[in-house]
């Protein structure tokens, strides 16, 4: 087969696929929502009619909702309602957790099922680190970069930073800032969960010149990492002071 013939055949193959492309996506019906209606900012503004339709449309609308979570995970409130069996679009969540196998959300759902985190308190920040400890296989590869993860809660009231400190201390440390914290201060429960174990600490926020802050050490990094495994999720929950 000469080059021209090969190129012609390849172009015909493309033409064939273009001809075979379905007129509309699988499962889409006349009542289905347009893609812009699945933007996270819009989902919360769906009309009653739209909500009812999506709830009854697992094949297309719930699938599209799940696709929108491939870039931005579902809001924590949605995960919580799913765990409580109150989520109206369960096929979307199953698609995200099972079909897409989102490890971050699976870890969060596990924590929710274990009731390891309390969600009714105000701000919640979630950090996900995937394959944090994977070393490159080649002998000449550069060493792994130190762990540094930072995340702000959905409401902007809590900022959490996870750091692998330099040797000789070489600890796993979590820093919490609470710019949304009132004069009364508060506490933050930090949970670091991996596929192995779960580490927890409850921190008292302290007033500094920069605002309300707290920090916690989870011990020597290598030891903590070996207990947690490859993928971690760090959940920080703000609690108002009692009384």
């Amino acid at each position, binding site marked *: 087969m000469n080059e021209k013939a090969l190129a*012609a055949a390849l172009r*015909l193959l493309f033409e064939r696929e273009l001809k075979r492309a379905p007129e509309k996506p699988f499962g889409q019906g006349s009542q289905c929502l347009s893609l812009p209606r699945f933007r996270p900012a819009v989902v919360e503004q769906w009309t009653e009619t739209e909500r009812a339709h999506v709830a009854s449309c697992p094949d297309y609308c719930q699938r599209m909702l799940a696709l929108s979570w491939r870039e931005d995970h579902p809001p924590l409130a949605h995960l919580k309602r799913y765990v409580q069996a109150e989520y109206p679009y369960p096929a979307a969540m199953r698609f995200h957790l099972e079909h897409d196998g989102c490890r971050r959300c699976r870890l969060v759902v596990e924590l929710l099922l274990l009731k390891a985190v309390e969600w009714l308190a105000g701000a919640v920040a979630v950090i996900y680190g995937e394959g944090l400890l994977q070393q490159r296989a080649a002998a000449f590869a550069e060493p792994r970069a130190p762990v540094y993860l930072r995340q702000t809660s959905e409401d902007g009231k809590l900022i959490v930073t996870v750091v692998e400190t330099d040797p000789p201390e070489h600890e796993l440390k979590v820093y919490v800032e609470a710019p949304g914290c009132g004069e009364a201060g508060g506490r933050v429960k930090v949970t670091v969960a991996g596929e192995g174990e779960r580490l927890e600490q409850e921190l008292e926020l302290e007033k500094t010149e920069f605002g309300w802050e707290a920090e916690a050490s989870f011990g020597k990094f290598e030891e903590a990492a070996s207990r947690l495994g490859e993928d971690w999720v760090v959940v920080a929950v703000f609690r108002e002071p009692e009384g």
Partner: protein
Amino acid sequence: MFGHEESMAPDDDKDDNDLIQSYYACDDAAFEELVGRYRKRLFAFFRGLGFSYADADELTQDTLTRVCLTKDKPDAQFNPAKGELDAWLLRIAYRVACDAWRRKQPTMVSTEELAVEGTSAWEPADRGPDAEQQAAANELLDALAACLNELSRMEHAVVVLVIMRGLSSAEAGQILGTSEDAVNTALNRARNKLPECMKSKGYESVDPRESVDPQALRQAMAERGDEFLVQLGEDIVVRCRRRQR
């Protein structure tokens, strides 16, 4: 950029850039117009990369969803100063394909599966006047699709972008995030491997163009407006007539 598909674009006053800017300015109908222009092309792109029909459908929607979500992410929005919209779409589509490969082993389609798929609901109902000839052409194209799946992912993507879509090596390099030289190297490797693979499937001396319905091919090539392809189509028609005599 979509050199062989200009005729696919609907006659409309608004160009792609107008449409996406209208969408960013809250005109959802403009986004639907863009979907109408590009959905089938994206589907064929994913099929070209060897994804099954179901996966190509899902990844097409995934790509369009990601484009849709850029409305709320100014840094990720399409910028006409940085190139054409179709190149930007292909970059997103390729990232979507890479994510799919990372997520799981995709359903790469074998020749046998293609034959089954060819008889499913995805198959167009009208198979043309000469069903036997069309079937032979389809068999050959199925074998070629199977050979594409045996290439490395880089080689496969380069073949899809450069040969099937008609992009330059430089344009393909931008989409794949690699150099023009790397694209050319991958292309040369693929050009060596594909004929060998086709030979192993019994297509050593058969010119694939001879298996194609001449009328349909002539029409398709003329629609493309590509001189080389028009001439190629004419050659095939002439040879087919000779054989029929």
